C-alpha cells in the first residue's frame, strides 16, 4: 500500500498508490503535484505589475482593484475547475470500474462504468499536439458486435503518467479482468 514515485509526461513528480481491498477489488490512485508557490507568486506578481504599469499610464485606480479582483477570482476558478489533486481508478471485478478526479478545492467528479460494458483496459498510443503519448483507456463494448469497440474512455488525463506507471496500472487491472474471464468460462 506504499506510494511509489513516478514522473508525468512533462517531467513533474507524481505518485502511484495501489490498494487491494479484496481479491477482486483494487484501487489505484495517482497523486498529481501540488500547486507550486513559485508559479503562483510568478503569475500574481506578473498580473499585479502589469496592472500597476497600466495605473501609472492611465491614472485610474480602478485598474488596481480590478487586478486584485481578477487574481482572486482566477485563482478560485483555477482551483475548482482546472487543478486536479488526484485521480483514482477503482476496479471491482464483478461490478464495474469507477473513475474519480479530485480537484484542489475539494470537488470530486466521479464516473462509473458497469462491468458488462467494459471490453478491456489497454494502453493506447496516439498523436496529441505534435507528440505521441501513451495513455490508459477503457474500451467499451459495442452491444451489437462482440468484437467491436463502441467508445474509448481515456484515463489519467491530467496527471499523464509515463509508460512505467501505466504498465503497473495495466497489470493490476488485467489481473482483476482475467478473473472475470475465468468466471465466464467456468459458468
Amino acid at each position, binding site marked *: 500500500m506504499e506510494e511509489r514515485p513516478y514522473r508525468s509526461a512533462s517531467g513533474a513528480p507524481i505518485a502511484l498508490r495501489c490498494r487491494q481491498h479484496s481479491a477482486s477489488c483494487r484501487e489505484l490512485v495517482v497523486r498529481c503535484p501540488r500547486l507550486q508557490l513559485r508559479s503562483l507568486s510568478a503569475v500574481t506578481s506578473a498580473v499585479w505589475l502589469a496592472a500597476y504599469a497600466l495605473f501609472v499610464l492611465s491614472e485610474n485606480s480602478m485598474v488596481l482593484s480590478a487586478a486584485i479582483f481578477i487574481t482572486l477570482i482566477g485563482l478560485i476558478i483555477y482551483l475548482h475547475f482546472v487543478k486536479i489533486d488526484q485521480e483514482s481508478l477503482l476496479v471491482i471485478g464483478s461490478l464495474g470500474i469507477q473513475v474519480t478526479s479530485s480537484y484542489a478545492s475539494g470537488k470530486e467528479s466521479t464516473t462509473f462504468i458497469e462491468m458488462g460494458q467494459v471490453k478491456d483496459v489497454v494502453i493506447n498510443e*496516439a498523436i496529441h499536439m505534435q507528440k505521441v503519448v501513451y495513455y490508459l483507456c477503457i474500451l467499451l463494448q459495442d452491444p451489437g458486435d462482440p468484437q467491436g469497440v463502441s467508445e474509448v474512455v481515456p484515463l489519467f488525463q491530467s496527471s499523464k503518467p509515463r509508460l512505467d506507471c501505466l504498465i503497473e496500472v495495466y497489470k493490476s487491472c488485467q489481473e482483476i479482468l482475467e478473473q472475470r474471464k475465468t468466471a465466464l468460462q467456468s459458468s
Partner: protein
Amino acid sequence: ENSPAPLPERAIYGFALFLGSWFGFMLYLIWAYVPETWLFSLGLTYWPQKYWAVALPAYLLVAIGIGYILLFGINMMSTAPLNSTHTITDNYAKKQQQKKFQEEAIPALRDIPISEVNRMFFLPEK
C-alpha cells in the same frame, strides 16, 4: 510507355510555356508601368485598374503565408482526439476476413486487435 525521359513533344510544350510566360510577364509590366494616357492614345481603354497590379501580388503573398498556418491547423484538426475509436481501428480493420491457420506456414497478415498487442507487450510471458 510512361517514362519521364525527354521527348520532342515535351521540348515543344516547354518552349511554348516559356514563351507564354515571358509574354505574360511583359504584358504585366506594361500594364503596371505604362501611364494610362499612353494606353488610351493607343486605343487600349478596357484594362483593369492599375490598383490590381500591386494588390494581386500582395494578396498572393499573404495567402501563401496564411496557407502555411492553415495547413498546420488542418492537420491538427484532422488528428483523431484521444477518446475516438479511430485511434484503435478503422473500416478496413473491422471488415477484414480471418484466414485459416495453416500448419508450418507463416500466419497471414492481419490487423491485430489492441488487447492482444497489449498482452504481448506488457504482460510478461511465464
